[in-house]
């Protein structure tokens, strides 16, 4: 059927957002997605403020210092991604299990508890900022560990919310039907909640403290989150492209096996310089070198599928973001990771802007993209399952422009930070021997300043892309007369 014929046969003027066709889990997922998107914009905004302070160190000095902006920037990222993952799982939980969610009310309470806790934590970060070096500050203001600065009371709340989430998932699958995705997901959630506890106790020995802290940071991001995304991706591929369950589940098992083989002991690359025994140089180096294997394997499967099958999708934005996920994950985690993972070079790059370059592309590629893809799946269903393929009323300019701006912005920031990190590694670390003078020599070098200026330019581009994405998610499909099923006939 041609699009003109469909247009003339349907007289629908607008499609308002509607929750009518959503099940209980999907309604809860919309709450999570909304907060995730707000936190995403907050992440971009505080990133801009922190970036500006590299160029104008007096900017907001003593009002909103760099350490606060950076902390909110990174914490907002971790939390919005977590909200996105939890929302995505609630979205498909009833479809996957075949029954209504067990303990949905508890899930709703957990959502509000988490959201109120996040709000209070951010307000304390911004308004109180610091406290005396006592247990009281650890409990009420800031725990002091990079990336997981949330005070102890909020830590306990996060674990409690994760356990409620685990209960919802495990009990629902137990009541309904189990599947490969269900099994992997449930086991992964135990690890997700359990590993966070490793970052909650305090020791006076910095080496021991960092040793356990990395369990949360590395094993969350490069183990439990990867598997979580694998489950979400498996379900998305069945929904978006109609891939058979047997295929996605088999590849999910393979991913878990590869993750066990490389990702877990790849943890060693964080233990190079924190005072742990020397054997971690070998363990970290070898297993980190294996980490690109799953990503290269992904290329084989993609080429095989594109050569053998001809898939069609009715949600172009979601599919485009899944393709961005594959590329971003490969370059950010694979190429950028391997470039500085062996101890022979990591000695110079560790903790410089090189790490920030790798972090920006890897987090965006591996996690932000898949969450955004899922937002588009949710919006499609909220617009009464409207057509989101080709020939959209406005030619889909907003999602395309948002995608270009976000991807170009992040890639631009990554390259700019790479140049800054290279200069820091070379001048501060290799030439000046990590001295205090070397630090300032590197920070005031023209290469560093120019790189940071370009990072700011691309940061603004990313922010505009984020705003456009938000606008598109609120408006896409509003004036689309065709339903997905009719248009795909």
């Amino acid at each position, binding site marked *: 059927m041609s699009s003109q014929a469909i247009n003339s046969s349907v007289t629908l003027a607008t499609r308002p957002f509607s929750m009518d066709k959503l099940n209980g889990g999907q309604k809860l997922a919309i709450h999570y997605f909304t907060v995730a998107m707000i936190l995403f914009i907050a992440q971009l905004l505080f990133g801009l403020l922190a970036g500006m302070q590299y160029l104008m160190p007096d900017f907001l000095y003593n009002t909103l210092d760099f350490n606060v902006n950076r902390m909110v920037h990174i914490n907002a990222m971790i939390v919005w991604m977590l909200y996105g993952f939890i929302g995505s799982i609630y979205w498909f939980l009833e479809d996957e299990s075949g029954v209504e969610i067990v303990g949905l009310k508890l899930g709703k309470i957990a959502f509000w508890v988490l959201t109120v806790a996040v709000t209070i934590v951010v307000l304390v970060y911004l308004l109180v900022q610091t406290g005396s070096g006592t247990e009281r500050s650890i409990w009420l203001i800031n725990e002091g560990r990079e990336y997981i600065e949330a005070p102890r009371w909020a830590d306990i709340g996060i674990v409690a919310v994760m356990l409620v989430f685990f209960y919802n998932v495990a009990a629902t699958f137990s009541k309904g039907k189990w599947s490969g995705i269900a099994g992997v997901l449930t086991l992964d959630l135990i690890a997700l909640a359990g590993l966070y506890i490793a970052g909650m106790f305090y020791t006076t020995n910095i080496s021991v403290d960092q040793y356990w802290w990395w369990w949360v940071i590395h094993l969350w991001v490069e183990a439990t989150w990867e598997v979580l995304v694998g489950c979400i991706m498996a379900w998305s591929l069945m929904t978006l492209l109609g891939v058979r369950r*047997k295929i996605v589940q088999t590849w999910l098992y393979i991913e878990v096996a590869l993750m066990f083989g490389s990702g877990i002991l790849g943890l060693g690359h964080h233990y190079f310089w924190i005072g742990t025994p020397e054997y971690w140089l070998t363990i970290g180096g070898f297993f980190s070198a294996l980490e690109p294997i799953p990503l290269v394997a992904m290329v084989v499967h993609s080429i095989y599928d594109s050569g053998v099958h001809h898939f069609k999708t009715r949600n172009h934005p979601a599919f485009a973001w899944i393709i961005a996920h594959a590329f971003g994950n490969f370059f950010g985690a694979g190429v950028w990771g391997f470039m*500085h993972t062996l101890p022979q070079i990591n000695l110079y790059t560790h903790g410089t802007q090189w790490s920030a370059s790798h972090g920006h592309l890897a987090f965006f590629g591996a996690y932000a993209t898949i969450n955004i893809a899922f937002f588009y799946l949710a919006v499609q269903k909220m617009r009464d399952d409207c057509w989101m393929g080709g020939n959209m009323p406005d030619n889909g300019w907003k999602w395309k422009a948002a995608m270009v701006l976000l991807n170009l912005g992040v890639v631009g920031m990554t390259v700019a930070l790479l140049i800054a990190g290279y200069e820091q590694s070379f001048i501060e670390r290799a030439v000046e021997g990590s001295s205090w003078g070397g630090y300032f020599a590197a920070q005031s070098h023209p290469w560093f300043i120019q790189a940071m200026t370009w990072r700011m330019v691309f940061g603004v581009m990313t922010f505009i892309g984020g705003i456009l994405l938000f606008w598109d998610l609120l408006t896409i499909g509003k004036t689309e007369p065709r339903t997905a099923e009719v248009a795909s006939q």
Partner: protein
Amino acid sequence: MIEPVALADFFMSFFTAALIILTAVVYVALYTWAEVKHKRLVKYASWFVYAALIGCVLLFSLIMHLNGYWQILSVLMALGYWWMPRLILRLCVATHEEDEG
């Protein structure tokens, strides 16, 4: 004990590391495409890219001072990237058997 990269080799260490991953991807992409579409020329191209990958691994190993047992890593990279696409392709064919049938 490790021997850090020399100052003069700083850029090449990053460059060869990136090239290892990129040539590996081009190699596996060409190899898989050649197998799926039965293209002999593409297969020759994949071997050519694999030779470039081996060159990168050798250069990388020299620059990074991968001596002693670290040489195992170089061998693993060279052999691993050769066998990996073959194994993954077998898995692809096996998992898609019903579609082909």
